[in-house]
């Protein structure tokens, strides 16, 4: 599998391009801040992107299974889910890996066997997009769940304590008739 060896050699370059690409979806100087600030506590977004995308690409290259991919997708998408991106914008970076790969192996692609392997690898990327979609939706659901729960908690507990809710007692034997 010639492509695997190529991917392995160029891994650092590809991941570098990919991370830059993701970070460049932000405003220019925020992107500059995300790229240059190396302190993980002062720049959690930038550092998480570079680490997780690195692991993600390694998992993708070595044919990682669904769980491994989502384990690495989760930190990135958890951040993208709460920033002002539409779902399409949030997940776009997954399929943007394809043009990066194509530009990286432009010359090698002339050789037929390699281009067939690349097409198959791109299918894997599409599969990863679907996994990403699940992870992204899970984050969004968690967000909405939190929104709903704050409202419910607020009222329910207040009612409970104000004695407006009679909480259901445990089933006592014999207090209801069978008819």
């Amino acid at each position, binding site marked *: 599998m010639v492509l695997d060896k190529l991917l392995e050699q160029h891994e650092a370059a590809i991941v570098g391009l990919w991370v830059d690409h993701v970070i460049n979806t932000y405003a220019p100087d925020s992107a500059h801040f995300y790229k240059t600030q190396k302190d993980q*506590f002062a720049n959690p977004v930038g550092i998480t992107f570079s680490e997780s995308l690195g692991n993600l690409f390694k998992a993708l290259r070595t044919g990682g299974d669904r769980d491994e991919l989502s384990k690495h997708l989760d930190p990135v998408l958890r951040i993208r889910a*709460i920033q002002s991106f539409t779902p399409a914008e949030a997940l776009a970076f997954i399929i943007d890996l394809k043009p990066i790969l194509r530009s990286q192996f432009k010359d090698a692609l002339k050789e037929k066997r390699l281009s067939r392997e690349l097409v198959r690898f791109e299918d894997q990327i599409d599969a990863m997009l679907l996994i990403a979609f699940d992870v992204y939706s899970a984050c969004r659901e968690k*967000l909405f769940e939190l929104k709903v729960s704050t409202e419910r908690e607020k009222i329910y507990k207040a009612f*409970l304590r104000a004695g407006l809710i009679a909480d259901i007692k445990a089933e006592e034997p014999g207090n209801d008739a069978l008819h």
Partner: protein
Amino acid sequence: MSDLPKPDDLLNFSHRPPKTEWMDTPAEIKKGFACYAGNPKSLEAVGLPNPRTWSCFDEDWQLPENWQEIIYEGFKERLDKFRSFKVFMDICVRCGACSDKCHYFIGTGDPKNMPVLRAELLRSVYRNDFTKAGKLLGRIAGARPMTLDVLREWWAYFFQCTECRRCSLFCPYGIDTAEITMMGRELLNLLGLNIDWIATPVANCYRTGNHLGIQPHAFKDMIDFFVDDIEEITGVQVEPQFQKKGADILFITPSGDVFADPGTYTCMGYLMLFHFLKEKYGLDVTWSTYASEGGNFGFFTSHEMMKRLNAKMYLEAKRLGVKWILGGECGHMWRVINQYMDTMNGPADFLDVPVNPITGTRFENAASTKMVHITEFTADLIHHGKLDLDPSRNENKVLTFHDSCNPSRGMGLFEEPRYVIQNVANNFYDMPASTIREQTFCCGSGAGLNAGEDMELRMAGGLPRANAVKHVHDKHGVNMLATICAIDRAVLPDLMNYWVPDVEVTGVHELVANALIMPGEQERETDLRGEPLLGTEDADE
């Protein structure tokens, strides 16, 4: 999503946003980032101007025609009334020291969340109206006229600042963007532009003394509910007193602890502590349903509203004739008390300098305001060995401490809560030095932004703090985040739930109560939350 992206849109999605100047990129008010507008009933209840139903998402904000003039007059008046405002408008040299310190900039990546730019939003209008250079040179001198877009921008970004003042720490001249945000919000309030999550609690607090509008009897019922819980766990019947005249101490805590989990357990902690002190040392503490709210959402509206809501504390203390006031665990409440209360509603000469009757300690640092922080009080007790504590009961909790912004940068309360925690629990780990004490990161939901509708903003704002908790969670296995602020206790569970799922949130005095050996209490199997204590869980099954 009415307008599905057309196929060709898909391609240029990941293009870089246009590199236009910040003055040319208009602010976009987005769902999940802006809070709903204040409902007119609340505005009328406290007499705030221009009450009407409107939404920030639609175009027409139903503003009075002469709104520019109102803004100008309001601006002028505040420049005279606040030297901080006028000085901060003039001396910023835009050196960029504060620009990457704001948790909202770090989390959202929106350049206008940089503290220097948030201030420039206001400063640009100031230059246009109040400085010669601004009038002459216009855009070159960094001035721009007050337009509707600018107003929308103010609305979007002055409600994206939790007034945590981290930027003021790093600014060479101490320019306080929180102060500028307060002025911005006051100006917006002149036009009736405020958010419901602040306006309604203000109205409730004004009328019923607490943010939720809990009526006195309901307030007492809730406390009684806690009394039953305590009895179930410890077998001891605590008897809190309400509006008891002639008591030693009036205790005021944020009402958030009375209704929102996990604050409720901290409230139970207070009850047990005061019962213990009453039993052992005869300390007479009273609560008050009238002054049942330590917090002050008026602080996020205007200086006048802050004063109107805060007046209750001294009035109630005077009416009940207590010796001094004890304040519960809260964040912005303590900024108001520590730096504003005495000036606004003082002097409190009907109270005397707080002395802890049990240990005899005179709280010199509260000699004029006559209000002591609960952790100062408890730390003093522990230091003199007045509390019988069994820290092993908190053994299953691996703790870390989140310095709430206001006690950290408005008071400097670092060692007291840590001292208390380390005496009531054994495993405590501080987060990295650059994320705690005076450099602490905000929970992302302060200054009245802990509504439900701006959850994305809150998650983005709390990202740096969550990232630090995740670090100590991975490194030391921390599973409990302690904090001394009611809003923190209400919002951090959501933050933890989203970023670091297996870390819970607790108040400091819940831990104190867990460890407290009450006179005449039964052998405890569970902590205040009903979870089994270490070593007893196998006994149960």
